[in-house]
């Protein structure tokens, strides 16, 4: 019996020891495999951003389909720290912008509710986009109106509408339908009002107390859904992401991972990546770019439009379709060609866009030698080594090049009768002038290497009859031509560092301090992934820092006086939808 008891005791002891060991092993596994907590200071301030024109168009396309025409482009936003998307902590909306939004809203609402005209081949949008049929098309139908308002409102405002808001909108629809004898006319009025509602037009970071950090806040689930969606898709969250937010799944590691992976695998990722690089490369300037038709007769509006598209296609193909090393964008010969670009690259092209390999002896490799970069950073009728060198440092390396002094003497560069034939000879004047040399010594050795391309991006070997010397150096690395410059830039440690900073800034909607502790972490992960941008996006999207809210430092905008009629002041941390925005009219 005792033996038996002893046996039982021994067995129990073995069970206890075994259990403790198992728990210890499990704890070790959990500790070793869980994401390390970000540094305490990691995070970004809660902000309000005005939706960009592309975000607006992408959102409308997602909600109502491609056949709804958004209309002409909105007025450009102000660029902050190299990105348009960062005009954040205080948002001003001018009367002109409001008119743009109003015009677009009227047109979109009218198209969504259109009956169509089969004789003219115009389909009925309302049948597809209003999820119910009214009892009678000429009378109000509150139930159907509420169904539409709930569904559209949830997508437009990126969170469910309160029942009070639904009732208010249904009442508006009812009254308008009554007055117009048209149920869809009533919905049109309501949709119009939703499309100019700040809850749609402004991307706000709504917050809640952070359960893991006493006294701190984090984005609430819907705020996080919007942040993920605008980062990865440059558009509003879809139904599935909002469902995940509603269930609180974005704050479980499994739920967040599932949603992030789904978003990364979605074709909408291409829109997000295109939007980021279009912004980072400053391609919005193509909207107003033109070249002297006398000097560059083959450069038309179509050429410049396709130049922008060529680089974006190359970026998407390289980074997403091929999942290649970001740094190789500056050396790759793979690109795409169109009819309009054929004359510049001296090659024939099939209609539309086709893959194209830059010939080895073309003097071109990488996106620095694309017509986009070369035309964007040049004068209307001549190249500019200084502008190109400055752009390279600012856009790709996140370095600041100061503006020229106000009394700079441009006569040597602009004198057409000058005996100085090449840009190198002309810029020598600046490099030897102590007032100019500081900046020109950091821009010109890069920009002069791109002098093999004129202001229209066309290859040349001579300028004004003189042979062009394209030797140069980038931060101690020497090269002989643009291909060498691309390789030097590719191998520059500052290149991936800059991208990480820009993507993280873009994700959080505001400038990121160089000392932000997350930059080093993301950069290290980026390097370990082989500089795959999809992995960088995943890393940032999955990071706890993305959802953390930290106090905002005072910005320049906060100190500046408002310049236009309507100013939307900085946000509070009220979590109710729409409670963050205060409008002040200035007369």
């Amino acid at each position, binding site marked *: 019996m005792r033996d038996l008891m002893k046996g039982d005791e021994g067995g129990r002891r073995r069970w206890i020891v075994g259990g403790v060991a198992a728990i210890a092993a499990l704890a070790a596994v959990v500790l070793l495999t869980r994401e390390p907590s970000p540094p305490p200071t990691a995070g970004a301030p809660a902000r309000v951003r005005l939706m960009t024109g592309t975000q607006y168009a992408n959102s409308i396309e997602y909600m109502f389909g491609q056949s709804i025409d958004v209309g002409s482009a909105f007025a450009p936003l102000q660029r902050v720290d190299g990105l348009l998307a960062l005009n954040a902590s205080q948002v001003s909306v001018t009367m002109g912008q409001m008119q743009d939004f109003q015009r677009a809203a009227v047109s979109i609402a009218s198209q969504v509710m259109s009956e169509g005209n089969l004789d003219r081949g115009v389909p009925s949008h309302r049948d597809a986009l209003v999820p119910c049929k009214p009892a009678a098309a000429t009378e109000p139908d509150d139930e159907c109106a509420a169904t539409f308002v709930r569904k559209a409102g949830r997508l437009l405002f990126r969170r469910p509408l309160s029942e009070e808001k639904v009732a208010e909108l249904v009442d508006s629809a009812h009254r308008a339908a009554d007055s117009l004898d048209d149920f869809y006319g009533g919905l049109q009025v309501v949709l119009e009002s939703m499309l100019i509602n700040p809850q749609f037009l402004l991307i706000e970071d709504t917050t809640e107390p952070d359960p893991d950090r006493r006294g701190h806040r984090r984005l609430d689930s819907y705020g996080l859904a919007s942040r993920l969606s605008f980062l990865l898709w440059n558009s509003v969250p879809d139904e599935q992401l909002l469902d995940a937010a509603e269930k609180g799944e974005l704050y479980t590691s499994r739920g967040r991972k599932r949603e992030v992976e789904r978003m990364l*695998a*979605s*074709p909408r*990722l*291409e829109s997000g990546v295109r939007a980021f690089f279009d912004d980072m490369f400053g391609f919005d300037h193509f909207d107003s770019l033109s*070249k002297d*038709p006398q000097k*560059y*007769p*083959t*450069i*038309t*509006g179509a050429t410049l439009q396709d130049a922008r598209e060529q680089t974006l296609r190359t970026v998407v*193909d390289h980074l*997403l*379709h091929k*999942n290649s090393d970001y740094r190789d964008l500056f050396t790759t010969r793979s690109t*795409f*060609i169109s*009819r309009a670009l*054929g*004359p*510049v*690259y*001296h*090659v*024939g*092209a*099939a*209609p*539309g*866009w*086709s*893959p*194209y*390999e830059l*010939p080895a*002896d*073309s003097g071109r490799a990488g996106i620095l030698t694309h017509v986009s970069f070369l035309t964007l950073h040049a004068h209307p009728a001549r190249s500019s080594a200084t502008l190109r060198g400055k752009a390279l440092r600012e856009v790709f390396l996140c370095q600041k090049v100061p503006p020229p002094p106000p009394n700079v003497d441009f006569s040597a560069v602009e004198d057409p009768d000058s005996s100085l034939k090449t840009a190198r000879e002309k810029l020598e004047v600046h490099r030897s002038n102590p007032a100019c040399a500081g900046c020109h010594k950091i821009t010109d050795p890069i920009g002069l290497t791109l002098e093999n391309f004129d202001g229209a991006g066309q*290859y040349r070997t001579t300028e004004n009859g003189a042979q062009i010397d394209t030797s140069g150096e980038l931060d101690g690395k020497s090269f002989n031509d643009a291909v060498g410059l691309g390789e030097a830039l590719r191998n520059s440690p500052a290149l991936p560092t800059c991208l990480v900073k820009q993507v993280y800034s873009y994700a959080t909607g505001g400038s990121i301090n160089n000392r932000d502790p997350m930059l080093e972490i993301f950069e290290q992960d980026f390097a370990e992934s082989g500089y795959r941008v999809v992995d960088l996006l995943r890393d940032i999207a999955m990071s706890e820092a993305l959802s953390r809210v930290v106090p905002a430092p005072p910005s320049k905008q906060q100190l500046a006086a408002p310049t236009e009629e309507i100013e939307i002041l900085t946000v509070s941390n009220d979590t109710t939808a729409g409670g963050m925005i205060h409008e002040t009219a200035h007369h």
Partner: protein
Amino acid sequence: MKHSIARQVGWRAFTAVATLAVAPAIACAADGTAPPNGRIAYVTTDMYWGVYQTPDGKAECPDGLNKYGPREVFAKLYPKGGTEIDTHLAREALKYYPEDSKDNFPMPEARGPIAIGLNLDGKVGPNDFTSPTGEKGIDNALYRVIGCSPQFRGPEGQFRLFGNRLVRQLTYNRSMIELTGVDSLQNDDSVQVTILRGLDPLLTDAGGDKIMPGGTQRVDNRFSKRFYNQLQGKIVNGVLETEAKDVSWPWAVFFGNTNEYRFRGMQFRLQLTEGRAEGLMAGYADVDSYYRTVMGWSTHHLSYGQLDPSGFWRKLWQHADGYPDKNGKMTAISSSVNIYMAQVYLDRGEPNITVSQSR
């Protein structure tokens, strides 16, 4: 997400551009360096009938310009009007059955020793002209017929202004030549010239007016075979000269009217550069088809340039100087066209066919 680009654009476009991209794209030098793969193509941008003009026209047209067009003839013939059938419709019918005409209204001919054109028969005859650059034996009997017709004279004659503009506007008129086997654009004793037709609009400059080199044309292999031809040629000091061959050349004036000119013994003489080919396309225009092609223009257009169909028919046959029929009647008239072309890349859209891909 990871869509195949080749699948997106289609294998046809992919192979076309892959083929287009084979050769290095740097333009050949004007000093005679051969174009890549010895191939270069040009597309027609401007054409008009060769009419030598002095500023006031008195040297070549001492009797003045033609005054009797359809309106003037009508006024003379029917001063009191008449029934629709006997007047308007009768004259319109004569446009298509000019053999029935008994009109004999005066139609001044171009005189003088100088005309634009080539020595087509290799002889220097009493009726031959001298070129503006002094070359003897120029055969251009058509110049005698059209040289004093406002219709064909520049800059505002209908055939000069609209005919040329329509060469640019209508893709039907997208005639091209491709030179192959070119060792040098300066001197090469043997090159092949293939006449083709394209399918695309011309590449214009930023102003939309000037046609630029460097565009791409898809080659039409479906509807244009009858226009295709191959000529042997040579390049001497940058000038292409070809053998003479019978060719049909598309030159519509409206989309609904698919006109073409038939030349007997047509030959090119073109100054070549890496971006342009300019010069003459000369040969014997088949009189019957030439007349009917010109009559593709509506009567009101013929009226603007005082070109009366009956008189024109009579003069063409009167001056016909080549290709006699079995009865010795000349069936063709020597002629010359000023032609301007711009370098173009050819996209044949088919695998395994080499394309002209670079200048």
